[in-house]
């Protein structure tokens, strides 16, 4: 039942081109070179931030393909056609390679990135020292330049109030926990990201293993919390889940924060088998479609908050196709 708890796994590597300063450097040549190297291996598209509308930039952020910092820095993104691999040029470091895969799959994500890293390493000489490893702009990335993270859906730990205990345990293991949707650390939709903090004095395979270990441990705690939640008030919980589904399918206007709260209960309903979902990946991409920038783009431009809420409700009607009510 991991798919319902661990949504995706992401690995990113930070690299810099040897001899160039980290800041105030024109990275467009790096982008062009990287693009021509990557193009020989697969189908990639380059998106210079300066050529995109703000709303198009935000959509890439919502899809976790680029960071907000890349927009501020005016860099470029090179994205593979399957949206699993993206390379950011001109962010905090000259080059940031990342791979996102569904479920708990850090091993494969890293294997995929090693290949990308080799291709780019053939094109550029990376700044590297035998003492400090890959040299990065920020001291928090030096060494492997690697950040491995898992996106986790943790409603029961949040609702039972055990999440803080869990977070403090995880941070003691040199891991960071933060909310995925919404600003800062506010965790909308009970989705959290767990990632390694240490990048120096630890090998890539040990980073992968340690993050997977912690993720598995949190999965166990979440499963226990889900059982406890059910045991404490089964009727109340079932009512809450079915009401959430009912509201989502029948509303006329709905804000993003209300949507995120209700969809979390719907996902819990799927876990408890009160609701049926044939394709969890379709559900996750449905949630991504409902985020503000994606909604605006679908309608061809900026819309006001009120208009967006109506649009969102309209889209929610589609939820019936992805999720159905079970007999029980």
């Amino acid at each position, binding site marked *: 039942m991991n798919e319902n708890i661990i949504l995706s796994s992401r690995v990113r590597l930070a690299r810099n081109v040897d001899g160039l300063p980290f800041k105030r450097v024109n990275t467009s040549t790096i982008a062009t070179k990287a693009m021509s190297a990557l193009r020989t291996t697969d189908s990639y598209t380059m998106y210079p931030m300066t050529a995109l509308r703000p709303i198009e930039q935000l959509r890439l952020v919502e899809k976790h393909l680029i960071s907000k910092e890349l927009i501020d820095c005016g860099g470029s993104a090179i994205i593979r056609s399957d949206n699993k691999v993206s390379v950011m040029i001109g962010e905090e470091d000259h080059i940031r390679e990342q791979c996102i895969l569904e479920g708990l799959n850090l091993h494969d994500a890293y294997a995929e990135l090693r290949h990308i890293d080799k291709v780019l390493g053939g094109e550029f000489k990376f700044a590297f*020292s035998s003492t400090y490893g890959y040299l990065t702009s920020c001291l*928090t990335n030096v060494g492997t330049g690697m950040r491995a993270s898992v996106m986790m859906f943790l409603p029961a730990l949040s609702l039972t109030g055990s999440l803080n205990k869990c977070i403090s345990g995880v941070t003691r293991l040199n891991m960071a926990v933060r909310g995925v949707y919404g600003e800062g650390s506010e965790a909308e939709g009970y989705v959290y990201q767990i990632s390694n903090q240490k990048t120096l004095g630890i090998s*890539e395979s040990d980073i992968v293993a340690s993050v997977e270990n912690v993720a598995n441990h949190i999965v166990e705690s979440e499963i226990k919390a889900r059982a406890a939640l059910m045991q404490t008030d089964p009727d109340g919980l079932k009512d809450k889940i079915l009401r959430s589904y009912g509201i989502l399918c029948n509303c006329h206007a709905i804000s993003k924060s209300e949507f995120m709260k209700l969809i979390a209960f719907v996902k819990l309903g799927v876990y408890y088998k009160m609701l049926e979902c044939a394709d969890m990946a379709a559900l996750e991409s449905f949630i991504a479609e409902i985020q503000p920038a994606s909604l605006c783009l679908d309608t061809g431009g900026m819309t006001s908050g009120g208009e967006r809420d109506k649009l969102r409700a309209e889209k929610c009607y589609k939820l019936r196709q992805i999720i159905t009510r079970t007999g029980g």
Partner: protein
Amino acid sequence: MICQRCNKKEATGYMETTINGIKKRVYVCPECFKQAQLEMYSSYDDMGLFSGLMGVPGAKAKCSKCGTTLREISDTCFVGCQYCYSEFGDRLKPLLRNLQSAQMHIGSGPDGEKSDEIAELNGRLRKAVEAEDYEQALKIQEMLKKLKGEEK
């Protein structure tokens, strides 16, 4: 008493700072007091975290390639270029210890398979030492020496 910051005006009060557990009292004039407060609040976020470097001689040292100072690095955690790492050398180590609790890379490198192997062996070496299996550790050390020897 003369202000200990500008050494010009009359000091009317004092500020207390604690660096590495040592309390220090500085007598200042009203202007310098205001200025010091401003400086303190503008870099407030980083002060607590990296106070290990505050007041250390050499904090003003500049990287000859990009001009970034050690103080800037300790305040922001950002270096200006790759040469900052070699230019500041040992002086970066306390910062790295704070941030990473390590000072040495043991992962892979750009030269591909060989560095992967070294990384793998380093990992095994650490585990062997942790398990106090020194016989195994010695063997791994020998293998590492051989592998690194070939590199030269």
